């Protein structure tokens, strides 16, 4: 397998992965004097599950925030769908079809699960304010159509039972799932998951892993995820980027990464003398 080519490849389990969807070129990001990311390049190919792993403070979340436009890197280029992406605000990035979840869960607490998922469809609603006011024809059809799509995703993630519940009342694991549902509702080309299993028990982790695989399988969604838990990542992902202290120390299939000496050192610790 050749990582540098823009061609696709076939995974071990026989899935066809397409060409490059997103490419990060020499990204450097610093906060004041502190460098969070130093000169990192990697790509994400269409249809794959791509993981970014690394110990605490390695700069994983910063990288995700660069992709989703929440942080603007001082140096480097972001290429998306074969074009260099201009400097953008996070909402503009979202409108390009890049959806995300958050490490600390960012849901609309005052709204029901269904309403939360419906906000994910905002960018698919085009009817103007005036037509909506009249509540006729196009606006009504659009609302019904979007509602159907939202319900489909709710079914898919098995949260039908709580669709009318205000999210503030849900337990942690379910909140994470609702957040995934909202991101999926946008029908993204690229789905970014920031520590989707953080704080979950074993059973919840297994559920979440299954959903991530199902989403990739069913909708063909390209997924980039950040994770702490090495075991989970190795089972889930097709290719893995490993970061440590803001630098890239490994990139390849889970097997390649597992046997990379730098990665082993970063995770297990090594004496520097």
């Amino acid at each position, binding site marked *: 397998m050749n990582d540098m080519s823009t061609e696709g490849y076939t995974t071990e389990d026989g899935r066809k992965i397409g060409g490059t969807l997103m490419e990060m070129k020499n990204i450097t990001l610093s906060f004041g004097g502190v460098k969070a990311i130093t000169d990192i390049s990697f790509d994400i190919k269409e249809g794959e599950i791509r993981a970014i792993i690394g110990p605490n403070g390695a700069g994983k979340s910063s990288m995700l925030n660069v992709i*989703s436009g929440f942080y603007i890197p001082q140096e480097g280029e972001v290429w998306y769908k074969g074009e260099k992406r201009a400097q953008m605000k996070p909402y503009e990035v979202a409108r390009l079809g890049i959806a995300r979840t958050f490490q600390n869960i*960012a849901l609309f607490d005052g709204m029901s699960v269904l309403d939360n998922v419906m906000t*994910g469809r905002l960018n698919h609603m085009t009817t103007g*304010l005036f037509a909506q006011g009249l509540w006729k024809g196009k606006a009504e059809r659009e609302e019904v159509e979007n509602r159907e799509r939202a319900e489909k995703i709710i079914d898919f993630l098995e949260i039908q039972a709580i669709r009318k519940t205000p999210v503030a009342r849900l337990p942690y694991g379910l909140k994470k799932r609702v957040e995934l549902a909202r991101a999926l509702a946008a029908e993204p080309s690229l789905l970014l998951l920031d520590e989707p299993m953080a704080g979950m028990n074993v059973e919840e982790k297994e559920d979440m892993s299954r959903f991530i695989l199902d989403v990739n399988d069913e909708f063909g969604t390209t997924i980039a995820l950040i994770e702490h838990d090495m075991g989970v990542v190795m089972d889930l992902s097709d290719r893995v980027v490993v970061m440590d202290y803001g630098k890239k120390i490994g990139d390849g299939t889970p097997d390649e990464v597992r046997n990379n000496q730098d990665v082993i050192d970063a995770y297990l610790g090594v004496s520097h003398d």
Partner: protein
Amino acid sequence: MPEQLVYAMEVFLNGLMAGVLYALVALGFVLIYKASGIFNYAQGVMALFAALTLVGVMEGQVPFSHLINAIFGTDIHHFGWHLPAIVGIVVTILVMIGLAWMVQKFVFKHLVGQEPIILFMATIGLAYFLEGVGDIMWGSDIKKLDVGLPQGINTWIDESTFKVFDYGFFIDNLDIFATLIAAILVIGLVIFSQYSKQGRAMRAVADDHQAALSVGINLNFIWVMVWSLAGFVALVAGIMWGTKSGVQFSLSLIALKALPVLMLGGFTSIPGAIVGGLIIGVGEKLFEFAIGPMVGGATENWFAYVLALIFLVFRPQGLFGEKIIERV
């Protein structure tokens, strides 16, 4: 029917109508509070500013005329036209949208994520700034506002109540009209915030900025939209109050009457603002009617605030406010 009861009914009806006017002001507060967590002290001044602008535009007054004359030694005061009310209202709406844009661009865009008390202080500053601008722009004299709303006693109600009770109720046509407008406004706003794309986005922004950005909502656009809506509600309130008692600077004080209304209705509920307004309106009129003579009158000055205080003790989130649920 005993005479006292008939009088009380009339007082009750008048209280309802007064309550609608309070509710109109409270509505503007709720809109901004819901979408941005800002308690907008300037809402009353916005109503005054909208009414001043409306009169100025309709009467063809030259804005900043005193300033212009002082600097350039000219002597201009009027453009010399009289515009129909509808043109004046459209122009004023545009001015209020422009104001919303400027407020967002120059003030609140720079205060995103600050403590609520800081945002509140900013709106106090905004209130005095706006009052000053209104003064320089349109002058400080009391102006008469007439957009052609029906005014005076409703003879139909007067006559039909006279037939039944042998006593005609005095209900002002303007109050009836204000009630209709308020009803339409509230229904419109509720439908907008619950079912429209922008309404859903507005509620989303109120809940979580990061999450709103991540689903592609332009925060600035939503905030400008909300301030514009509040500006529009301020205009409606300004027209009603201005027609009733003339456009004068004391108009901005009605904002203070909206506070107890909000305590009762809850800061986040649009229907709550209306019900709260009605309760305060009816409550203070009936209280003045029944208890006022015994304690020397003028109970309307304090009744609303004391009622709000009692409410705060027993139901801090108001009648319709979101319940405060805390997971432990």
